[in-house]
């Protein structure tokens, strides 16, 4: 009797695949239903933002940085402003620092709410998507009210923020946070004990601690693998050392931990925003010395912050002119795509989708 054997074949997942959050192509080598090898192909969303910024003045770079990662634009603006401020050794008004923290944390919540919805939709639950988008809208409205745009804000500027918050912002912000805090129990009730959700996520795609550290994984994905590392605490920037908040950690490193950790982070972000709103001082929101043709002295810096996906860094070189000599951005999603082949093999395509979704990869940050 002839022996039956299977033959490996290659499947293209993407670039136009709804679960790849942008345009990422995964070349999968399959053996039956099992994945043998994964090869991520990136570069479909490359817009040469780093090169474009070399031909723009420092102020004009801010709207460009918005496009590096458009789900948490505020953090991208902030990291570029911070890098420039460090080169120029510039003072930032206290009120501006508080406003920055409020905006950064609001944006983190918005990003995690989007993650909550999109991940659940990728795995097959449709209701969470509507829930997540519904509450995200409250935060987007706050941004629209403050800076006039809903996705690419151009709000955090070098030396402060562009405008003060309008009247009624504080009250609206508090009521939005209250609504989100109420709805958190809905989110958890919908998925945390849902048997289908648990089967799809618990014990699936375990990312070991050593592998995560070796590949430079950062942010919630690293903390879900049991490493308590958050740049807000380990390398404090802005005024994060003034606030009282916890760094949530989970130890299994599977899809479920990566999901639940982000819900925990939403609660911590809300704590920070409440403290910042309570302690919001009066005063200027912008350093008046910064003009349109602002020239920092020659120098270079690597500045990093913790955005909702991990470590977002900018390596900025200034030659004393009005345009930066070189801007290199380091996005956390790049490392997360690289790590995908190393712990997602020998599983089904459906589980790969769960892995990809819970890593919270966003392609513009990978390709820039």
């Amino acid at each position, binding site marked *: 009797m002839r022996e039956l054997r299977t033959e490996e074949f290659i499947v293209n997942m993407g670039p136009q695949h709804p679960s790849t959050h942008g345009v990422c192509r995964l070349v999968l080598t399959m053996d039956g239903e099992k994945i043998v090898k994964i090869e991520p192909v990136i570069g479909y969303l490359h817009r040469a933002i780093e090169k474009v910024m070399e031909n*723009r003045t420092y*102020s*004009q*770079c*801010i*709207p*460009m940085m918005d496009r590096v990662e458009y789900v948490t634009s505020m953090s991208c603006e902030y990291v570029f402003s911070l890098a420039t401020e460090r080169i120029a050794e510039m003072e930032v008004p206290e009120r501006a620092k508080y406003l920055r923290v409020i905006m950064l944390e609001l944006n983190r919540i918005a990003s995690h709410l989007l993650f909550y919805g999109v991940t659940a939709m990728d795995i097959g639950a449709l209701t969470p998507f509507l829930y997540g988008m*519904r509450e995200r*809208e409250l935060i987007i*409205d706050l941004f*629209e*009210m*403050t*800076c*006039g*745009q809903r996705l*690419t804000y*151009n709000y955090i*500027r070098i030396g402060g923020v*562009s*405008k*003060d918050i*309008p009247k009624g912002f504080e009250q609206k912000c508090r009521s939005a946070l209250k609504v989100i805090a109420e709805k958190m129990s809905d989110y958890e009730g919908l998925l945390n004990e849902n048997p289908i959700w648990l089967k799809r996520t618990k014990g699936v795609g375990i990312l070991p601690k050593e592998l995560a550290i070796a590949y430079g994984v950062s942010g919630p994905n690293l903390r879900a693998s049991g490493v308590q590392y958050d740049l807000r605490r380990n390398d404090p920037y802005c005024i994060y050392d003034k606030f009282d908040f916890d760094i949530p950690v989970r130890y299994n490193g599977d899809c479920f931990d990566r999901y639940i950790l982000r819900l925990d982070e939403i609660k911590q972000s809300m704590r920070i925003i409440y403290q910042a709103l309570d302690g919001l001082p009066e005063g200027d929101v*912008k350093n*008046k010395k*910064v*003009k*349109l043709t602002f020239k920092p002295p020659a120098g270079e810096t690597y500045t990093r912050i913790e955005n909702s996906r991990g470590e977002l860094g900018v390596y900025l070189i200034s030659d004393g002119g009005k345009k930066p000599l070189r801007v290199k951005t380091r996005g956390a999603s790049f490392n997360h795509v690289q790590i995908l082949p190393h712990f997602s093999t020998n599983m089904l395509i459906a589980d790969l989708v769960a892995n990809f979704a819970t890593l919270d990869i966003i392609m513009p940050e990978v390709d820039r």
Partner: protein
Amino acid sequence: MKEVIKAVGHVFIKMPQGLLVTLKHLFKKPVTLDYPRKKKPMMPRYRGRHYLERYDDGSERCVCCGLCAAACPADAIYMEPEEGEHGERRAKVYEINLLRCIFCGFCEEACPEEAIFLGQEYEFAADKRNSFLWTKEDMLVPHPRKDNPFKKIIRRVRKVYGVTEQ
């Protein structure tokens, strides 16, 4: 027997409880909008389409200084100056390429005459590429100004909060 009672209890108690949640949502105000028919009012600071402002007597505010074009990070603005009837400087050509514009609002902030500002409209769909190249005639607010209280409110609010100096 116990299991049967439990199952019957599920059907007659648990399921109506679940359906009651659905029923409650039927009478709640929906969070979605019937979009093309109903539109969401944008916030006063929203940055939508461009307008070129006039003085009260109808003359253009823009003096074609080129600061907006210099501030534009997307190189979307092109302008050529000319001399007006009374010797004033004004724009002969003033074009904004909406396909390049990223609505960052730097032109509005840079303008020393408060001539250009970004309004509330946000639907720019068109079927020809040429129709995205907006000229001065497209952007100038009509004179005499049509009675549009909404637009006046925008101007007022923007003046109250001030345009930040860069």
